[in-house]
């Protein structure tokens, strides 16, 4: 097995990369969508519906559909992971923005803040803990889902996991599956730790309610 450590390192880096890139893309899309739609009932529930439907499309189907468009490798993986991770962020953004106390909204509007200023300076910071919670759920979700990169020759631990699962019963199968799975788990925890760290550093200061 030892000669495979290089593989493992490469997989770990690839896995982390693909997750972070996808998460960043998803966060930008979902938060933007949330900011645009939180007070428009139809728009909000339609985008939530869409984000929910994405989550039900089996990875295999989604990727088979994307290979002709995006080819193999990082691109289809990132696209797939991004659409999978929209829902938790989007839903929490919408709910978070909606649950800001009424008297604070009134105070803010009374000061002549435009809708967008109220949104960015008051609602966003107050909704931030919930949005962050969505982000962290999404991060964990796609660390796991990123194994599907194996379907399209993308990076990450998926190759090992799928190879292991497909050959269960043969000698190395469990090793493959375990290395892959443990890798995913360690990565997941590391990424969540990263969130905790960033939150502590104050970049994502949570509100002082």
């Amino acid at each position, binding site marked *: 097995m030892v000669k495979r450590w290089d593989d493992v390192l490469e997989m770990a880096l690839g896995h982390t990369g693909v997750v972070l890139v996808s998460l960043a893309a998803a966060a930008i899309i979902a938060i933007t969508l949330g900011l645009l739609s939180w007070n428009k009932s139809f728009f909000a529930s339609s985008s939530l519906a869409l984000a929910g439907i994405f989550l039900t499309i089996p990875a295999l189907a989604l990727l088979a559909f994307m290979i002709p468009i995006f080819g193999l490798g990082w691109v289809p993986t990132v696209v797939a992971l991004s659409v999978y991770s929209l829902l938790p962020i989007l839903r929490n953004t919408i709910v978070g923005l909606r649950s800001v106390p009424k008297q604070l909204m009134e105070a803010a509007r009374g000061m002549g803040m435009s809708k967008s200023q109220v949104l960015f300076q008051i609602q966003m910071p107050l909704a931030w803990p919930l949005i962050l919670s969505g982000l962290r759920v999404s991060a964990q979700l796609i660390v*796991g889902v990123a194994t599907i990169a194996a379907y399209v020759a993308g990076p990450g631990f998926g190759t090992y996991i799928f190879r292991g699962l497909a050959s269960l019963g043969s000698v190395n199968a469990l090793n493959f599956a375990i290395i892959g799975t443990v890798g995913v788990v360690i990565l997941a925890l590391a990424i969540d730790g990263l969130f905790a760290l960033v939150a502590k550093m104050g970049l994502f200061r949570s509100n002082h309610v």
Partner: protein
Amino acid sequence: MKKEVAAAAVAAASHKRPSRFRGNKLQWELPAISIAMLAALSIFHISRGTPDSIETVVLNWNYVGEALWSHLWLSVSAAVIAAAIAIPVGVFLTRANSKWAMTGALTVANIGQATPVIGVLVILALILGIGPGTAIIALVAFSFLPVLRNTLVGLQGVDPTLIQAARGMGMRKSQILFAIELPLAAQKIISGFRTALVFSIGAATLATFINAGGLGEAIVIGLKLNRISILLTGAVLVSALVLILDWLVGILEVAMTPRGLD
């Protein structure tokens, strides 16, 4: 006399209140979209003419009905069980005030979320045997985190002056929890549950790999045998299930939201 007044107050006040479902609270677009999707699917099937021998295996009411039912059953019970565990755990963690408990529980939940469902399913099947029970365990692990996290944030976000007021009235911790904190955090917790439900419906497509039924079988057959009609049937039904269940929970949420908060 006093009682009459009180009774009158109830009667007088309750009839003039406008429906809590006014505005777009019913979110009719959700069932509307799903009906539109199902209609499109039907038209697709009707216009395609006679199915081939592979299609006939799946595309019959018996098969679809059973798959739909088992999918519904699996995913809903998994989401409900996840919530039934995650909410109390969340409550406990916000009380325990222990960094270790918090880190520990979140680590477990993170692992549950991050481990690929298919892997958990197959490995659990080898250990516990195959079937719906095993599938539900895997699905619960998978849909646990969103409920837990939102429960934590929801409870931590309750206005501290209200908790102080409640404490000042001599409410026991449990009473404050049930009468004040949980209702006020409900929207955020339910939002987590709705996410969990979608997770669980989506992941239940994999239950077929351990003989636990669901619409996943149609999807796998459609995919592996390249039969678009079967694939679409499975996928559209799963999506419709997501929309309709999410809609129902949404209705429940509006119905449960205390009027003072809407």
